[in-house]
C-alpha cells in the first residue's frame, strides 16, 4: 500500500514545475489510479514522490511523509525503492542506457544483481508478456517511438516491481502504439500490480481505471470512481479541463468552408532512404491552396518523409510541386515552406524570444514581430532566452517563427503531443488563424480531437502510399474515427 500524508513539495531553484500542496492519498494494492489535470498541476511531481526521485534526485523542500508498505521513501536509498517501484517516462528517447534492446531489457535486473539464470528467465517472461520477440537484439536508435515505449514497459516489468509509475507514457505514440500500451497496462493489472499513471490522453484508460484523481495547482481537488468516469459526458470533462474519456462522441464537426480552386499539384513523390524500400511512393496528389490537411497514419507510414521531401530537406528527392505560377524546385521549396518540428528545442537559436521572431523575417521589423508575439500571447516574454521557457511556451515561439516567416506552406509535426485540453485548443486557434492568412497547412498528428477541431481534410498514409484523401464532412469524420478505433474493434 502507498500512503501519502500531508505531502507538500516546492522545487528548488531552476525548476519550473509546480510543487504539491497538502496531498493526502492512500493507494491500495492492485489499484490503477489515474492522475489528471492541466499541464503544471503537479501530476508529474506526485509520480516523482512515489518513485523516490523526489527527494533523491530533484531538489526542493519536502514535508509530510510518503510511505510504501510502511517504509518511508525519503529515508530509503533510491536503489532500494527501485526494487519495489518501476517507472516509465514520457520521452521514449531518454530512458535508455544501452544501445541494443537485449542489454536494455537486462539492465534493471543486472543492476539489482539477480543471478544470470534468473535474469534469462525474467527476460523471457517479459518478452512473452509484451510480445516483443521482433524487437530483441536490435539497435534501439532504429526503433520507432512506440516500439521504444513498449521496450521501456517490458524492461521495467522484467525486474518485477509491485508498483508501476507511468508519467504521460502515451504522449509520443500513434493509435496502434497506444493500444499496445493499453495491453501492457492490462497485463500488469491481471498480475495484481499497483499502477499509478499521469496522463492527458484518457480515452484508452477508460476500461482500466479504478480511481481518477484530479489535481489543480498542486492539490487534489476531486476524485472519481470508475463508474463515475464512464458516465461523465464530454461537456463535464471539458469543464474540468480534461480530454474526453470517449472517442466517438468527441467533438462536433466544424462547418467546411468552400475550398479555393487553386491547387498545389504534386507528382512523383517517391523517395527511399539508402538501400531501403521507398519510404514514400505517391504518384500524384492535388491539395487545394489555403487548406488545412491532417496527415494521419501509423509511425513509419511515410508522413515525415513526405513532409521532409515537400519542404526540400531531402536533396536527392526528385519529385515535383507545381502551382498556377510554375514549378517549385527543391531550393524554392526550402524557401517557401516551413516546418514546426516536434521537439521545439531543435529549432530555437537566438538569445531572446523577439530575436527568434526577427530571425524568421525576410526584412526584420520589430513592430511587426511584436504583433506576432502579441497574437500568440508571448509579448510579456519577449526579452527572455527561449531556452528558459516551459515546453509549451517554446512550442509557441516555434509557431511564432512560422507565422513571422510568412512562408506559403507550413508543416506541423505533432504539435499537440503531450498537451492538455486548454493548450490543444490554443494551438488549434493559432493554426486556424494562420490559415486565414491564406497559408496552406499540413499537420502530422495522432490526435483525433485536435483533427476534428482544426483540419478540413485528411491525408491517410499507409506504407508510403496515400490510401485516403478526403474532406472532413460527415462521411469523412466517420472514416477518420474508423482509423482511430480500428484496434479496439479487432479485439472484440
Amino acid at each position, binding site marked *: 500500500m502507498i500512503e501519502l500524508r500531508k505531502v507538500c513539495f516546492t522545487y528548488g531553484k531552476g525548476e519550473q514545475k509546480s510543487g504539491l500542496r497538502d496531498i493526502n492519498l492512500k493507494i491500495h494494492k492492485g489499484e490503477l489510479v489515474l492522475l489528471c489535470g492541466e499541464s503544471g498541476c503537479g501530476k508529474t511531481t506526485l509520480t516523482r514522490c512515489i518513485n523516490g526521485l523526489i527527494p533523491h534526485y530533484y531538489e526542493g523542500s519536502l514535508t509530510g511523509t510518503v510511505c510504501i508498505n510502511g517504509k518511508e521513501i525519503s529515508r530509503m536509498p533510491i536503489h532500494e525503492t527501485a526494487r519495489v*517501484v518501476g517507472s516509465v517516462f514520457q520521452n521514449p528517447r531518454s*530512458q535508455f542506457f544501452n544501445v541494443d534492446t537485449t542489454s536494455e531489457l537486462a539492465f534493471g535486473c*543486472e543492476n539489482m544483481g539477480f543471478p544470470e539464470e534468473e535474469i534469462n528467465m525474467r527476460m523471457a517472461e517479459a518478452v512473452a508478456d509484451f510480445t516483443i520477440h521482433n524487437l530483441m537484439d536490435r539497435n534501439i536508435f532504429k526503433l520507432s517511438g512506440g516500439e521504444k515505449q513498449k521496450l521501456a514497459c517490458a524492461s521495467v516489468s522484467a525486474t518485477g516491481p509491485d508498483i508501476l509509475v507511468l508519467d504521460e507514457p502515451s504522449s509520443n505514440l500513434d493509435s496502434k502504439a497506444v493500444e499496445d500500451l493499453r495491453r501492457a497496462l492490462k497485463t500488469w493489472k491481471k498480475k495484481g500490480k499497483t499502477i499509478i499513471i499521469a496522463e492527458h490522453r484518457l480515452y484508452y484508460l477508460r476500461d482500466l481505471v479504478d480511481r481518477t484523481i484530479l489535481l489543480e495547482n498542486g492539490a487534489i481537488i476531486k476524485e472519481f470512481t470508475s463508474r463515475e468516469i464512464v458516465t461523465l459526458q464530454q461537456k463535464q470533462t471539458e469543464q474540468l479541463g480534461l480530454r474526453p474519456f470517449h472517442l466517438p462522441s468527441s467533438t462536433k464537426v466544424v462547418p467546411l468552408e468552400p475550398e479555393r480552386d487553386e491547387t498545389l499539384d504534386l507528382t512523383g513523390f517517391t523517395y527511399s532512404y539508402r538501400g531501403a524500400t521507398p519510404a514514400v511512393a505517391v504518384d500524384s496528389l492535388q491539395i487545394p491552396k489555403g487548406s488545412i490537411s491532417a496527415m494521419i497514419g501509423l509511425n513509419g507510414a511515410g508522413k515525415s518523409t513526405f513532409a521532409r521531401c515537400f519542404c526540400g530537406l531531402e536533396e536527392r528527392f526528385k519529385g515535383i510541386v507545381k502551382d498556377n505560377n510554375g514549378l517549385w524546385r527543391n531550393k524554392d521549396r526550402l524557401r517557401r515552406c516551413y516546418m514546426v518540428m516536434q521537439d521545439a528545442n531543435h529549432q530555437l537559436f537566438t538569445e531572446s524570444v523577439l530575436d527568434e521572431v526577427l530571425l524568421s523575417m525576410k526584412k526584420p521589423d520589430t513592430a511587426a514581430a511584436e504583433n506576432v508575439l502579441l497574437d500568440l500571447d508571448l509579448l510579456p516574454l519577449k526579452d527572455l532566452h527561449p531556452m528558459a521557457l516551459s515546453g509549451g511556451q517554446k512550442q509557441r515561439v516555434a509557431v511564432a517563427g512560422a507565422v513571422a516567416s510568412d512562408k506559403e506552406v507550413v508543416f506541423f509535426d505533432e504539435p499537440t503531443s503531450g498537451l492538455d485540453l486548454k493548450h490543444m485548443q490554443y494551438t488549434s486557434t493559432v493554426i486556424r488563424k494562420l490559415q486565414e492568412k491564406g497559408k496552406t497547412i499540413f499537420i502530422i498528428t495522432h490526435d483525433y480531437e485536435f483533427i476534428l477541431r482544426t483540419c478540413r481534410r485528411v491525408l491517410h498514409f499507409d506504407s508510403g502510399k496515400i490510401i485516403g484523401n478526403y474532406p472532413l464532412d460527415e462521411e469523412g469524420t466517420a472514416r477518420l474515427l474508423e482509423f482511430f478505433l480500428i484496434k479496439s474493434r479487432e479485439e472484440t
Partner: protein
Amino acid sequence: MTDALLSVKASPQAIKLDPRTKLFLMFVISTIMISGSIEGEAAYVRLVLMCVPFVLLLTVKRLKEALLYVFFCIVAWFGEAFLVYSTTGILNILIVMLSGLILRFIPIVVLGYYLVSSTHVGEFVAAMERMRVSQKLIIPMSVMFRFFPTVAEESRAIGDAMRMRGLGNKGFFSNPVTLLEYRLVPLMVSIVKIGDELSAAALTRGLGGPGKRTNIFRIGFGPWDVVLLTLVTAAAAVYLLA
C-alpha cells in the same frame, strides 16, 4: 521460450573476439601505424597489421567496406612509395599528405568501427570488470556508446531546422561564429536535457546500488583470440627490435 530468446541473442559474427583482445589490437595497431614508416623491416610489420582490420571487417560481413579499405590502402601505399619521388610542387605536397594520412589513420578508423559495431555494451562492461577497472569509470564509459548516436541524431535535427530557416551553411564564411552558436546552443541544451532525464531513469532502475552487478554477457578467450594476440604481439616485438 528461453531458447527463442537465446537464439536471437546469437551473434551474426563469424569469429567472436573477446573485447580485451579488441582493445589490445587497437592499442598496438594504432601505435605502430601512426609512428612507423614504409621503409625498412618495419614496413613488413605494418603490412601484416594492415591486413588485420580487413579480416575483421570480413568477419562482420562487411564485404564492400573491406574491399574499399584494401583499395585505399593499396593506392596510398603506392602513392607514398612511388609518386612521392616522381612529382614536385603542390601536387607532391598533396600526395605526401593524403597518402600519409590515409595509410596511418584508415586502419585505425576501420578497427574502431569494428570494435564499436561488434561489441555489446554489456560485453565491454564485462571486459572492463575483469580488468578490475573501477565502476566509477566503467559507467561513464559505457554511456559513451549511447552518447555518440544521440549527439548525431540531435545534430541532424538541428541542421534540418537551420536549413529550414535559411541558416544553412552558405553564410558560413561571412558569419561563422553566429552559425556555430546557432548549432551548438540548441545541441547542448537538448543533450543536457536528455542527460538529466536519462540519469533519473537510470536511478529508478537501480543503477548505482551497492551490491554486485550481474552481467549477462559471457566473455572469454577463444582460439581466435590466441591467434590474433600472438600475431600482434609478435609483430610488436619485431617492430620494437628492428
